């Protein structure tokens, strides 16, 4: 296992078991769940498709619930009322938006982060109090940074 970062060390010192619900067991949801559970968070994955859950590695230390997170009964089973952080990672923006707001407004979850596929939707998510993560925007920013750093180093060499 990789060594803990400073933030993780801090969390471990507090000794509070942060409870995280992750909606969607796709590539991103699965990886985030694995990492958070390894760090020591209490993690529950909610996924509609049972076959997607079978992809979870054996050393995943969290829980998994089969069901549609857009239905109240599913989030109740996941104990959303005790949740510290909800992460929506499905590939459908309306689903992520809907689940995020049910979590925030109905179950009172204070921290909600969502994946946003279509970057033009980022504004709507953020306006509604959801932290939006857009893979497209992240890629663009990373490219930009890399290119600018490259340009700087070329410019520096020429001096």
């Amino acid at each position, binding site marked *: 296992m990789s060594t803990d970062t400073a933030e993780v060390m801090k969390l471990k010192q507090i000794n509070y078991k942060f409870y995280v619900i992750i909606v969607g067991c796709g590539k991103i949801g699965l990886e985030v769940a694995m990492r958070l559970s390894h760090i020591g968070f209490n993690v529950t994955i909610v996924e509609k498709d049972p076959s997607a859950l079978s992809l979870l590695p054996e050393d995943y230390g969290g829980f998994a619930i089969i069901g549609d997170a*857009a239905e109240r009964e599913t989030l109740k089973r996941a104990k959303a009322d005790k949740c510290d952080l909800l992460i929506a990672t499905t590939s459908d*923006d*309306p689903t992520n*938006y*809907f689940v995020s*707001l*049910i979590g925030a*407004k109905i179950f009172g979850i204070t921290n909600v982060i969502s994946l946003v596929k279509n970057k033009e939707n980022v504004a709507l998510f953020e306006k509604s109090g959801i932290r939006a993560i857009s893979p497209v925007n992240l890629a663009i920013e990373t490219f930009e940074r890399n290119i600018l750093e490259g340009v700087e180093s070329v410019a520096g060499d020429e001096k």
Partner: protein
Amino acid sequence: MKIVIIGGERVPYFLAKKFITKGYKVYFVNRDKELCNEYSRTLNAVVILGDGQSKQVLDQIEIESEDIVVLLTERDRKNFFIARLVQEYYNVRNVVTLLNNSENEDLFERYGIRTLKVTDLIMQNIEPLLFENEVVETLNDESSNKGVTVLKINVDWDSKIAKKTLQELEIPDGIIIAGIVRKDRYLIPRGDTIIQPDDKLILICNQDKSELAMEFFFS
């Protein structure tokens, strides 16, 4: 003021027709190519082929805040998302949407989105039928093998017992009317209750009186 109808299959067609005859300009957004082709031929409306949850598609309509947006897609989450988009982007005040899962009503309400609870509407129509059935079943379960029978009787329009109070009927001993199903209500009858045509009577009687009961209420 424009009417923007997003999603749906046959309902938008008839909705659009009504709005058009009232003189409103109707915009119709749908992902179904064939449906769009058909509607652009048969309706005097602006038909836009595209996904209503995309801003580029919505921007083509130049929606204004006083327009009415009607959402008829199959999924609550999609209707909710589009409702929020038009509220945020164009400050639309009046959004009406189909709502399948009525437990979501609170969330829609929170954002001032009007809902049409289809599932509830259908249930409200079916519930009296279920209720009647449940009452009879419960009574049957309770009374089976105890010498008592439950009977269900429909009161015809020309029935002898219609328009009479229970008192006037002089129901024979060993037979009681346990309940009357009238339209969507279940009545517990009293002596002065008047039996109406189209009522359904639920009778409880001694087993040996069931023939007598049938005779009495059907003759």
